[in-house]
């Protein structure tokens, strides 16, 4: 019964979003207040029914309803409850339902937090989001129904893939999807602006917080995915340039370009058509990612089971959404106008060159990911493009990007002169260079790559410190000056520092990691990275739905015990699948990572054991966390807070004279 309710709820939601996607937009075009007035109720309604559908599927998983095909394929009665819930999005159909649910939540959020926006804008934005929801709901109902029945019901389910039975599954997909779906808001704002024929700094101010929130989620989602791969897969890697990973990285890169471009548009009213194009591109890449993962055109460890029929549907959806948006862009963009004036050498142009770099980086990832497909389609045979390509192309692009990351916040708006800028930064650059040249010597090995990475990272740190010093220096109350800087300023610095941490982590772990792959009898020790690892044998333990051979490894340094690690080799009861669960000691200076290989036959308990020393590896994800934090700070800035008086005044104002005066009103208020 419950699955049928869920299915019905999806149908109702579909009808609601069809209305949401049509009535308000027509209303905005014809200035029909009645039609536009339906917007919010439709938004609330579709949220209610999407939630019902999602709740029904979750319920089916929790109570082990194996008469639902999807539940039988991805769950099992022995599966712990938390993973039964996470399994809702463990497969294709359920993950689509997650998409739809999160999209409905974003639609609700926009409906609630848009009281200060003019009615036609709200109508258009929610209308566009509604149209996207139409596509996804139709896709689900026509080709990927999670509520499809399995009759007669299975006695028990096929179990969730053991690799997915991990907290990572609970957090990573929802967070990542919040990012993917969140970019639809920026997209909707862009389309709404193109439809309305008006694009200005105010539009950028409205758009920016939504885009930043989506970006924050995307950053977190990708970072958690990377960390999960690191501790789960057992060989210490954290990024593989796999097509699905790239499918998330591309929108992130464009999203980063977008938030910087919005900064220029908000500040100077400039480069608006470029910003709009980036907004369309970011979401298009999100959609394209959906296509790549589910259609079978690319091979990936992450891809869902392929079905060409589904591929055709998504591709058609893609072509309609992106094609129409780009046609609209081609038609309306020429009328947008140029905005404020600035010099060839100015903060604006530094930001814009960074955008060019980020876009080229995204394009390179795109080319690399899809090249095998292009070649095959042209009959040129099969080709693989892997990490060597991406690293060779991406790393050189990062160098000028990071250089500008340091200069940008220091450069003046409108115009700066090279001699003046150089004079300000020369000591910062010199100190970064010094650290980069000397630090590797203290770590025991000096290579050009390590020095370059450190130079980039410390250049960012130095420029952040320089900027802080310039702003906070002077006589009088320091704390007052600290509080006087805007949150978005601190957000920017935090985010850039996050990049610095990230670069340090990558550089040092690639430069200094060590690995030992040894045969260990009980009592044997192995030396690595200054630590001593002692193997104390393996015992059998039992988990909720698996049996494990659990190793005990004592780690000491200079004779003093540091920690005990328990790597496991598990075999899951239902699927019989083996899995290696590495044991990691996480630390600020690095990770100690131990995983079990295979037992050595005829050896009285000896095992093949892998020991990795990963210096500073956690700085990679700490850096991402700091980036996300920076984004959160930026959105908390005063100017995005919606004051009640401003709202009322704005609504009053716009009824009289259009939103041209909105800026003036807000200016007086804050």
């Amino acid at each position: 019964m419950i699955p049928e309710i869920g299915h019905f709820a999806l149908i109702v939601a579909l009808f609601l979003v069809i209305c949401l996607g049509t009535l308000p937009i027509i209303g905005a075009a014809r200035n029909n207040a009645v039609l536009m007035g339906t917007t919010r109720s439709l938004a609330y309604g579709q949220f209610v029914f999407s939630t019902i559908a999602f709740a029904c599927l979750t319920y089916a998983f929790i109570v082990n309803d194996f008469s639902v095909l999807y539940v039988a394929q991805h769950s099992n009665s022995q599966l712990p409850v938390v993973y039964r819930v996470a399994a809702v999005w463990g497969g294709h159909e359920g993950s689509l339902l997650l998409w739809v649910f999160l999209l409905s939540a974003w639609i609700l959020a926009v409906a609630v937090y848009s009281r200060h926006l003019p009615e036609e804008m709200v109508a258009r934005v929610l209308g566009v989001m509604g149209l996207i929801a139409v596509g996804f709901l139709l896709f689900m109902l026509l080709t990927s129904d999670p509520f499809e029945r399995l009759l007669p019901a299975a006695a028990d389910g096929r179990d969730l893939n053991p690799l997915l039975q991990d907290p990572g599954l609970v957090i990573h997909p929802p967070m990542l999807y919040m990012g993917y779906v969140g970019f639809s808001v920026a997209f909707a704002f862009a389309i709404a602006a193109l439809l309305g024929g008006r694009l200005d700094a105010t539009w950028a101010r409205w758009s920016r917080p939504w885009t930043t929130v989506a970006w924050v989620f995307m950053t977190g989602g990708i970072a958690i995915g990377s960390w999960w791969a690191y501790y789960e897969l057992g060989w210490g890697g954290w990024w593989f340039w796999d097509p699905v990973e790239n499918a998330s990285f591309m929108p992130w890169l464009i999203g980063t370009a977008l938030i910087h471009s919005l900064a220029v548009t908000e500040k100077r009213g400039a480069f608006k058509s470029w910003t709009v194009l980036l907004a369309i591109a970011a979401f298009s890449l999100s959609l394209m990612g959906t296509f790549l993962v589910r259609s079978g055109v690319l091979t990936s460890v992450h891809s869902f089971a392929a079905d060409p029929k589904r591929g055709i549907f998504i591709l058609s959806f893609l072509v309609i959404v992106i094609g129409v948006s780009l046609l609209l862009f081609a038609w309306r963009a020429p009328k947008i106008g140029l905005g404020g004036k600035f010099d060839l050498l100015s903060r604006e142009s530094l930001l814009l060159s960074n955008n060019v770099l980020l876009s080229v980086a995204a394009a390179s990832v795109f080319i690399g990911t899809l090249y095998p497909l292009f070649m095959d389609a042209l009959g040129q045979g099969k080709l693989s493009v892997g990490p060597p390509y991406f690293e060779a192309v991406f790393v050189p692009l990062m160098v000028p990007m990071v250089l500008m990351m340091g200069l940008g916040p220091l450069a003046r708006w409108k115009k700066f002169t090279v001699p003046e800028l150089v004079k300000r930064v020369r000591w910062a650059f010199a100190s970064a260079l010094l650290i980069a040249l000397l630090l590797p010597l203290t770590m025991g090995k000096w290579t050009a790559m390590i020095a370059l990475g450190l130079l980039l990272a410390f250049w960012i740190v130095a420029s952040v410190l320089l900027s802080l010093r310039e702003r906070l220096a002077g006589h009088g109350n320091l704390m007052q000056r600290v509080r006087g800087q805007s949150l978005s300023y601190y957000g920017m610095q935090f985010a850039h520092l996050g990049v610095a941490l990230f670069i340090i982590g990558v550089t040092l772990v690639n430069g200094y990691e060590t690995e030992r792959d040894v045969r260990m009898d009980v009592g044997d020790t192995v030396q690595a990275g200054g630590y001593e690892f002692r193997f104390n044998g393996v015992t059998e333990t039992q988990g909720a739905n698996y049996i494990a051979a659990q190793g005990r490894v004592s780690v000491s340094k200079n004779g003093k015990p540091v920690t005990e690690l328990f790597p496991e080799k598990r075999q899951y009861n239902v699927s019989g699948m083996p899995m290696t669960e590495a044991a990691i000691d996480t630390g600020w200076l690095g990770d100690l990572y131990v995983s079990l290989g295979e037992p050595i036959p005829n050896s009285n308990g000896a095992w093949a054991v892998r020991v990795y020393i990963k210096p500073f590896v956690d700085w990679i994800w700490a850096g991402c966390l700091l980036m996300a934090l920076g984004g959160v700070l930026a959105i908390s800035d005063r100017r995005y807070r919606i004051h009640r008086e401003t709202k009322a005044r704005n609504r009053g104002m716009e009824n009289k004279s259009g939103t041209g005066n909105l800026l003036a009103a807000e200016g007086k208020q804050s």
Partner: protein
Amino acid sequence: MKYLLILLVCLLPVFSHAGEATDMAADPVLEKRMIGLAENLRCLVCQNESLASSHSELAEDLRREVREQMQKGLSDQEIIDYLVSRYGDFVLYDPPLKKSTLILWFGPFALLLAGAGMLVYQLRKRKSRIPEAELSAEDAQRAASLLDETAEPSNQPKDNRA
């Protein structure tokens, strides 16, 4: 009895002696070289994994093949050629530079040049296209008085706020 005790104490180190673990690989240096090469090769039966990290049987066989060829003294390039002549370019994660991969390898750089060029061109053009906003005398005075009101003693360049 005393001597038995002494004997036992002397034998204690024998019982507590823990060995230094030996590398799984017969030749760790060669193994490192093999893994280094295998990381840039693709496992043919997997869903996108490198030859180094895959657990599949074919991957183990291929790693064994690479190892043995290295032991025989073949260079990395010779081993790559051997595998490519049997499995095609598909087995390489580092795509070779050929006519068909020119766009792949030079595309990004070409895009960078094009993007930079377009940016510089656009920026130069807009400078001449946008008229400088002129303040009327009245507005200029109003601006000056407002700035004097809110001015604080500081050595910050005014234009640098985020």
